[in-house]
């Protein structure tokens, strides 16, 4: 913890009055917050509180939803990611995302991981691509399990393996940030434990923002926690403080199980 505290001055994202609306109906009412460059930031809160909508602000995935509008300012390393000059396609190469349900493409394991590097031209030859694929799978902790069957379909893996495969796929384009939207909600406890270990390892190198329904998971893996309620950011701080000494009664009610 102390290591993270000392680096608190390093900020990855700064949000000013961010509002998200679906077909004119506001789901997030003006969020102001800063997200650390290293470590894991967890978003918690009851269903429909806007935490997933907020997560999708950081890689502009909300752009792909018809009728969704985002206002306010979001800076990544000081650069406005909603500026008209910024191309969301390039932003998404820097900000990777892992979804609730594992979504490997119906291609081979190799092609799944090679997808990003190929479209962004990250490898100039086959050997380089092989290297990227191997390195990404190793970093996602999947290499040992699949190295002999890279040609097999990615959809044939188990749920936990699939989720690590899509993490490898995201890592392969060397992002700076990895967003995770309830990545363990479709996994069994063993696969979840494996995934949490992986997240901890990755947090040494990447900025990780994770939405989770499991407060125990937030407590285990995150350094900072943000509690959302009905479209508002209620409380945000060090995870230890939020869980031991919440300032707001709504946070108190949620983490003790009285709401949500």
């Amino acid at each position, binding site marked *: 913890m102390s290591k993270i505290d000392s680096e608190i001055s390093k900020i990855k994202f700064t949000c000013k009055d961010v509002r998200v609306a679906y077909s004119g109906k506001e789901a997030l009412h003006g969020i102001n917050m800063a997200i650390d460059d290293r470590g894991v930031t967890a978003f918690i809160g009851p269903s429909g509180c806007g935490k997933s909508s907020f997560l999708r602000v950081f*890689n502009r*995935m909300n752009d*792909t939803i*018809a009728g969704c509008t985002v206002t306010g300012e979001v800076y990544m390393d000081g650069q406005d990611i909603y500026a008209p000059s910024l191309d969301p*396609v*390039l*932003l*998404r*190469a*820097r900000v*990777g*995302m892992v*979804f609730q*349900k594992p*979504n*490997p*493409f*119906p*291609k081979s394991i190799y092609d799944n991981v090679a*997808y*990003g590097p190929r*479209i*962004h031209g990250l490898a100039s030859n086959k050997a380089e691509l092989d290297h990227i694929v191997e390195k990404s799978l190793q970093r996602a902790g999947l290499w040992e399990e699949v190295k002999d069957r890279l040609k097999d379909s990615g*959809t044939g893996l188990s749920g936990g393996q699939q989720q690590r495969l*899509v993490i490898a*796929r*995201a890592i392969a*384009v060397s992002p700076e940030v990895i967003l995770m939207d309830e990545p363990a909600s479709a996994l069994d406890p063993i696969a979840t434990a494996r995934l949490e270990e992986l997240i901890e390892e990755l947090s040494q190198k990447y900025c990780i923002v994770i939405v989770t329904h499991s407060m125990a998971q937030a407590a285990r893996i995150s350094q900072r926690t943000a509690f959302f309620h009905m479209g508002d950011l209620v409380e945000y701080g060090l995870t230890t403080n939020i869980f031991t000494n919440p300032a707001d009664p709504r946070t108190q009610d949620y983490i003790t199980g009285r709401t949500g």
Partner: protein
Amino acid sequence: MLNSVFLLVLVLAALMAASFVFARRKAKATVVAAGEGAGLIFHSQPGYYGWLAGIVSGLAALMALVAGANLSLNPWMTLTLMMVVGLAGSYFAASRVSAEFRARTYVEFFIKTLLVTCSLIAVFTTVGIILSLVFESFRFFQEVSFLDFLTGLQWSPQTAMRSDQVGQSGAFGAIPVFTGTFLIMAIAIVVAAPIGLLIAIYLSEYAEKRTRKIVKPVIEILAGVPTVVYGFFALMTVGPAIRALAETMGFSVPTQSAITAGLVMGIMIIPFVSSLSDDVINAVPQSMRDGSYALGATKSETMTKVVFAGALPGIIGALLLAVSRAIGETMIVVLAAGRAANLTGNPFEAVTTVTVQIVALLTGDQEFDSAKTLAAFALGLMLFIITLVLNFIALIIVRRYRARYE
């Protein structure tokens, strides 16, 4: 005649309705008479006793009708017999009302039998058609050798009526006919596959909801146009247009040609391809697209590398179904392709197809025992086998594709 049929149906319906009401009322009365809480002791609800009585009386009356017809009774006697037997059946069913009697089981059994019978009608019809095709073809192959039929390069089915006629030898080589069929099919698919696919991609990935709501039904209207309308469209508009175009470029094309028929047939199957492909593209889960966008892929990269790749087996299945549809199509080719059995791969010549030849062989006064008419059955059998195999392959591909996302 019509009146008496109408009367019979009316009597039958009235009889069944009366039996239903009668037996149900009796069942209700029995339950009430058995005292408080007896409803649970009875095996079936009163309605089932009613249904059973209705079914029994109806079946009994139908049997009486058949018996009456076989014994050639006069209509009034038949009618009377029906009513007497029907009422007897109804009375019998109603007399069985008791707590132990399993009316519900019998009614369910009857319903199941009815459903099975309906499916069997379809199955037996198909089997019957296949058998008649096979047997008539067999008769044909007793007169013309199977090998000659499959490999012969000459098709002129006119046989000599009188011995002094010349040039009417009757050659049954099917290759020119099938070449024409496949040539037109190939042109049709070359037209329909890209256009249909691009329409499907536009509608499923790029079009706004409002546009889609208007465009999709309009395209599907194309599928509702009767094929004979396409046929005279080909003959009156497309054929002359192609001939005029060819003349300006200095060569001549007949009004009836493979290209005319193929083009129009291609237009006909566009909605087929686009609608089926649209379905398979939509079946690719949104999470695949999200995964691709989240990696920084553009819309077209996502479309070609993820969505299209995922939907490809389904699209191939859709194309095969469209092909088998094109092969069996008749009216367009009858009007626009011609009748001369030219063995050619040139789309700017008149060719003939299997379906056109079948029409030509069987129209007019014919006796169904000459090689000429029997040839139609052999052609029909070949066509049937081809489309059957195509449909079979298409279904396997489509099914395998569905399994990928489940």
